[in-house]
């Protein structure tokens, strides 16, 4: 009853000065708002990345040339000079000359040597210039084999795929992604048309069905040729990347280990740490990217949290002004029997109610900012229950911490000093 009455007193004081109360909590609203906005955007980005990576397939293994210091696979490294995990080392392998050869692909595809791998493929990346409505544009050409379409689930719509005979003959044949085909040959059947890649002339033999796009892959805009032909045209003898698919999700780790052993043996390397390639499962990729987005999200939220502290100081400032302004009120309350603890409670409740209200309004504001920001990007913000509890907890803690000093100042006043205050 008494506490309810004191809460009522606090609420009355807040509503008696609506304008000032709002300005006081504005700092908290903005602080909590920005924390919530950043966390919800971070979560949104995270889940959008998650879903795109899962489109790559949970069973696929990506083999990249270069030193194996990417992501979790380097955790066994004891070298003092090895780059730390995470973004700094992510580029480590990309610039290196590739040693992934067609012979490696043959070994990886060998079911007796690599029983847990259902299919393996390689990709030679190049580009070619296409003319769309009179304007030239550059598109990606991937030199590969038929397993690439199987692993990525890219069925043929018309014509035929890349055959083993095409590979053996280094045939200059081209399969087009659906969008590319429609753009380059809008009015005619693309099949049997000629396309120049580098200095060679390729013939279109097939067109893919429209596939789902993601930020990582847009198979609809690519052209696909036999990797043997691509190696000739682009003047290389190695794959830019290789891809293997485990027979099921439980076999991913075994498939990864087998693949690593085969490649090490093929490349004549005995020490794992000296491997000239790295193998990543979708899970590894997810872990790495999650840790990066996690770091960025918490960094940004940390910066936003500074504004919370500033907001808290604003609360303290206004509470101090309010204590001074209401000194005689405090004196009167003490004269009619308010104890030190009653006054302390009243002012702390006032500060906490203010910040709590600010926190709740801030959650709304943060969600709105997230929604607006997400409209310009391609994902939905996610406000988690944890973020809400965090925001409410932090804002009431701010109110408590910054409210105690003014409240104590008010409560410890001598009744007569407070009454006489001018």
């Amino acid at each position, binding site marked *: 009853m008494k506490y309810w009455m004191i809460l009522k007193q606090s609420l009355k004081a807040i509503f008696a000065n609506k304008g000032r109360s709002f300005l006081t909590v504005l700092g908290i609203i903005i602080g909590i708002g920005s924390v919530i906005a950043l966390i919800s955007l971070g979560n949104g980005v995270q889940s959008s990345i998650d879903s795109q990576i899962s489109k790559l397939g949970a069973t696929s293994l990506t083999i990249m040339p270069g030193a194996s210091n990417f992501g979790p696979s380097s955790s066994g490294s004891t070298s003092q000079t090895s780059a730390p995990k995470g973004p700094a080392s992510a580029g480590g392998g990309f610039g290196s000359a590739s040693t992934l050869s067609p012979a490696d692909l043959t070994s990886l595809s060998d079911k007796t040597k690599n029983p847990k791998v259902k299919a393996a493929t390689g990709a030679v990346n190049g580009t070619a210039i296409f003319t769309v409505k009179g304007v030239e544009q550059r598109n990606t050409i991937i030199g590969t084999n038929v397993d690439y379409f199987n692993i990525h689930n890219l069925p043929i719509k018309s014509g035929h795929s890349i055959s083993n005979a095409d590979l053996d003959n280094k045939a200059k044949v081209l399969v087009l992604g659906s969008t590319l085909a429609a753009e380059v040959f809008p009015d005619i059947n693309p099949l049997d048309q000629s396309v120049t890649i580098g200095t060679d002339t390729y013939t279109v033999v097939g067109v893919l069905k429209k596939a789902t796009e993601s930020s990582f892959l847009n198979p609809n805009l690519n052209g696909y040729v036999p990797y043997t032909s691509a190696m000739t045209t682009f003047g290389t003898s190695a794959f830019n990347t290789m891809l293997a698919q485990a027979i099921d999700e439980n076999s991913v780790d075994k498939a990864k280990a087998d693949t690593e052993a085969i490649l090490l043996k093929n490349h004549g390397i005995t020490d794992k740490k000296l491997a000239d390639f790295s193998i990543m499962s979708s899970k590894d990729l997810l872990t790495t990217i999650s840790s990066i987005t996690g770091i960025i999200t918490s960094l940004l939220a940390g910066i936003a949290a500074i504004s919370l502290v500033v907001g808290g100081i604003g609360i303290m400032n206004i509470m101090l002004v309010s204590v001074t302004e209401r000194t005689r*009120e405090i004196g*009167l309350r003490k004269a009619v*029997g308010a104890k030190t603890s*009653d006054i302390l409670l009243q002012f702390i409740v006032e500060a906490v109610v203010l910040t709590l209200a600010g926190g709740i309004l801030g959650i709304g504001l943060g969600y709105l900012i997230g929604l607006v920001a997400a409209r310009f990007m391609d994902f939905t913000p996610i406000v988690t229950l944890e973020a809400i509890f965090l925001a409410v907890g932090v804002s009431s803690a701010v109110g408590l911490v910054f409210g105690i000093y003014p409240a104590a100042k008010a409560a410890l006043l*001598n009744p*007569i000093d407070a*009454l006489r205050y001018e």
Partner: protein
Amino acid sequence: MTAIMSLKDISKIYKTGDEDTYALNKVSLDINKGEFVAIMGPSGSGKSSLMHIIGLLDTASSGSYCLNEEDVSKLSRKTQAIIRNQEIGFVFQQFNLLPRTSVTDNVLLPTIYGKVKNPEAKAKKLIMEVGLEKRANNKSNQLSGGQVQRVAIARALVMEPSIILADEPTGNLDTKTSIEIMTLLKDINKKGATIVLITHEPDIAKFASRIIHLRDGRVVSGKDK
């Protein structure tokens, strides 16, 4: 008759620079239960300091003060707050009411800090007794000076205290309103409450049954009944 308030050699010293100023200088006096005492004196004579010590709003520099036969210097701040709440009702000259707060809520203010039966009903009855039933929901800043003092008297009575301390309750009021307020206090006294009133107006002091004169912090006359 037992003294409800008993002061012995009470001094109140204010330090102004190097010099000590005596607001009260060895004041000794007894006030009995049910008395209506007026404390008079020119400004600076120590009337207000005396009332603040009597009302436990301030502490004496030296001397002893027994309220209901209990030495108040031995009481904790918390106990003093409880006594102010339960035993004493204050009517001040200025800043009597909470600003922007209704008459009813002002009268109910002491009930937040202590127990009393049916506070709402009691407040309603008291507001009627001081003749403000039509203004019960008005905010304190919409009241005239006389109305403010009536609200203060109602508030002073809501906890049914045995002592009412009034510091120049008619200081800002015209004669007619002053007499109305004093009549109200006289009635309260008749019902059994001890009243200590501070004033510098002889006409107002006439309502009291005893007049104590203070000058330069000393009791000049009216020490004993």
